[in-house]
């Protein structure tokens, strides 16, 4: 059914269609409207046979989901940003125990400085936690990926994180097609656990594992993710056949066949990049796009085949590892390791803490990759003026003060100066 609705609410409707049995929610640090929507549905009786639990923290939220999942219930929660960090220990625990929990991550920045806006720092902080991570480009994607996420999680008995850009998607009202319950039921059978707490068949889950078997437990976790490299495209094909929408499987491409330059990106920014590509192609610039849907498992082989033989690869990402560079760029580099005639990879860090990524800036940086190649990470639209002033200040004054506040003051001074002129 087509409807005009907010991304969070659309996602909530998709979750409800998946018939979750236990939903746990902590409201803030920060949360989206997803769990509020689900809470209403449970209260109104629209979502039946579901326990909705208001917990005291994100750590408890995922812990409740762990208990519910281990006891055989389909469990769901949502979080973002600091909330994901607060549940970090349970994030690793859920994947280590092999519990098929589905969690929405309404991607946002991590502080300090405190910032509530969108980027991918939260998702990247848990990229090695053993969860599968799928990135939605649109709110329709969010709906479609969540439905597949439950199936994927339960077939592998592994948790899945569906990453949906905070604000840009979660708070955006746009047209979406909400699937029919009958179709979702046909696609997603009831949860049949591979391990369950049952007095009729008592087992111990979560035993202490020493050096004799720890490596093997970890290996099997990794092996499941390699299985997902097959399973994700299969599920996407099955989903497409039933629902008529292509979610891309591991990745999607746009104008990629003949492109000399390929842009690699994740999430909602792909929309802006596609518009930019259209404009640049009209100018005769040979450019295309690879939109990574599955960041974990990382589609190394598929990506290598796509990127090999291109002249330039530009990775645009909304996160970076301080002291190292962009995580996605590093993963792309890894995909090209030992590839003969590997293309040059250029890393662009953009949109941190919710900064807008404009087509103008993308035009400039894509052309620069050809004209003025760079090493390391390029920070899109970096305000070099205030950075220069702050570095000068820090060198001169020992008690230079808090960085964030200093920069804000400089911005304010610059604005007043501009107004005075």
């Amino acid at each position, binding site marked *: 059914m087509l409807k005009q609705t907010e991304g969070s609410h659309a996602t909530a409707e998709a979750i409800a269609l998946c018939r979750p*049995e*236990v939903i*746990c929610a902590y409201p803030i640090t920060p949360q989206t409207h997803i769990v509020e929507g689900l809470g209403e549905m449970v209260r109104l009786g629209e979502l039946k*046979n*579901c*326990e909705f*639990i*208001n*917990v*005291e*923290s994100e*750590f*408890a939220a995922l*812990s*409740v*989901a*762990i*208990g*519910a*999942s*281990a*006891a*055989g*219930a389909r*469990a769901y929660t949502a979080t973002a940003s600091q909330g994901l960090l607060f549940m970090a*220990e*349970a994030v690793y*625990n859920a994947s280590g*125990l092999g519990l098929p929990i589905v969690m929405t991550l309404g991607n946002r920045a991590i502080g300090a400085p405190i910032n509530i806006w969108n980027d991918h720092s939260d998702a990247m902080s848990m990229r090695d936690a053993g969860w599968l991570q799928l990135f939605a480009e649109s709110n329709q994607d969010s709906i479609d990926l969540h439905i597949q996420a439950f199936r994927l999680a339960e077939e592998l008995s592994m948790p899945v994180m569906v990453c949906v850009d905070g604000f840009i998607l979660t708070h955006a009202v746009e047209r979406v097609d909400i699937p029919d319950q009958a179709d979702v039921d046909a696609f997603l059978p009831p949860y049949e656990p591979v391990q369950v*707490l*049952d*007095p009729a*068949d*008592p*087992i*111990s*889950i*979560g*035993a*202490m*594992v*020493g050096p*004799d*078997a720890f490596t093997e437990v970890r290996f099997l976790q990794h092996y499941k993710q390699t299985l997902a490299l097959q399973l994700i495209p299969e599920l996407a094909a099955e989903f497409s056949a039933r629902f008529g929408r292509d979610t891309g499987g591991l990745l999607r491409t746009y104008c990629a066949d003949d492109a000399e330059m390929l842009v690699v990106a994740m999430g909602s920014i792909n929309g802006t990049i596609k518009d930019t590509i259209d404009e640049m192609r009209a100018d005769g610039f040979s450019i295309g796009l690879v939109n990574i849907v599955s960041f974990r498992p990382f589609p190394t082989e598929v990506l290598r085949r796509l990127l090999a033989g291109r002249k330039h690869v530009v990775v645009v990402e909304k996160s970076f590892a301080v002291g190292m560079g962009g995580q996605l760029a590093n993963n792309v580099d890894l995909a090209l390791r030992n590839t003969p005639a590997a293309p040059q990879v250029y890393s662009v860090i953009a949109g941190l803490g919710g900064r807008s990524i404009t087509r103008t800036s993308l035009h400039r940086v894509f052309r620069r990759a050809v004209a003025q190649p760079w090493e390391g990470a390029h920070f899109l639209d970096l305000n070099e003026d205030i950075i220069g002033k702050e570095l000068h200040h820090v060198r001169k004054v020992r008690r230079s003060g808090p960085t964030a506040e200093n920069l804000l003051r400089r911005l304010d001074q610059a604005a007043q100066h501009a107004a005075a002129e």
Partner: protein
Amino acid sequence: MTDPTTTAAANQKLHFYQKGTFTVGNRLVPDTERSVQASIDRSNALTCGHRACQGCGEALGARYAMDAAMRATGGNLIAVNATGCLEVFTTPYPETSWQMPWLHSLFGNAAAVATGVAAAMRVKGRKEVRTIAQGGDGGTTDIGFGCLSGMFERNDDVLYICYDNEGYMNTGVQRSSATPPTARTATTPAMGPEPGNVFGTGKSVPKIAVAHGIPYVATATVADLHDLERKVMKAIGIHGARYIQIHVPCPLGWGSASHDTIRLARLAVECGIFPIFEAEHGIVTNSRKIRRPVPVAEYLKPQRRFAHLFKDGGDSQRLGHLQAMADRNIAEYKMLEPEEEVG
């Protein structure tokens, strides 16, 4: 010759005292009142072969509690365990001592995980299955406290049992918020002008549990099997959040002899240091009486963690403070008042 069972039944109003305690010998009570542990049918939920230290109070407490809960639920029981001694010594991979469904997730989340288990049972329509969360004092009073308070506050249908051995014993005997003042631990060494743990710190989680107004709170001790079993069986039958804290001496952490575990647990009650009480919906309903209070020194002296209190003529000032703590408990929980007649 009179049948002792008949005699006991005829004298239910009498209290049996053995060695100056309230312990009632099984041979003196009728079959129906004998302990679960005395029954050949006990489930041995925590069975033999685990790797606890000799004389471990926690292993004893956990078996008493789980067997009682198994009896009360007809085996329809799921346990969630916090990280800690109990978790480590019972499940060295690939072995397990648990003869019941058992889940270990993390150190600080047992209460929340149990909430999830209970929710799953409710949504699956398995009302007969009851959920217990359990952990040591570290996993309960410190790192797991947030989740515990959340579980209490929501009145989730979980019985949480804390095995209180007054410190982080599994990791080398460090201080927890349940460590008593003056006790020597690895992080409160017996050094300096005021050796051991300091006065004015720590918290009573049973009291905090009572303040949540939850349906049932109790303290218990491994020195009184009948009382412990009764409380667990009572608690497991109540719906909503419930909390039992069981005092479990730790020979390793306390520096006591393995054969003194029960004796120390008994002395802790009889000197007033560990009050035994029950509370329902925020009101203390009864407390364990003491016939003859023993001086705290009698309880402290067999434990090497308090040895510095008795060196060089003794630290009479701090011993006095500890005695005052015990006396305050005795007054607060009316432990010297005459017992109400039963039956």
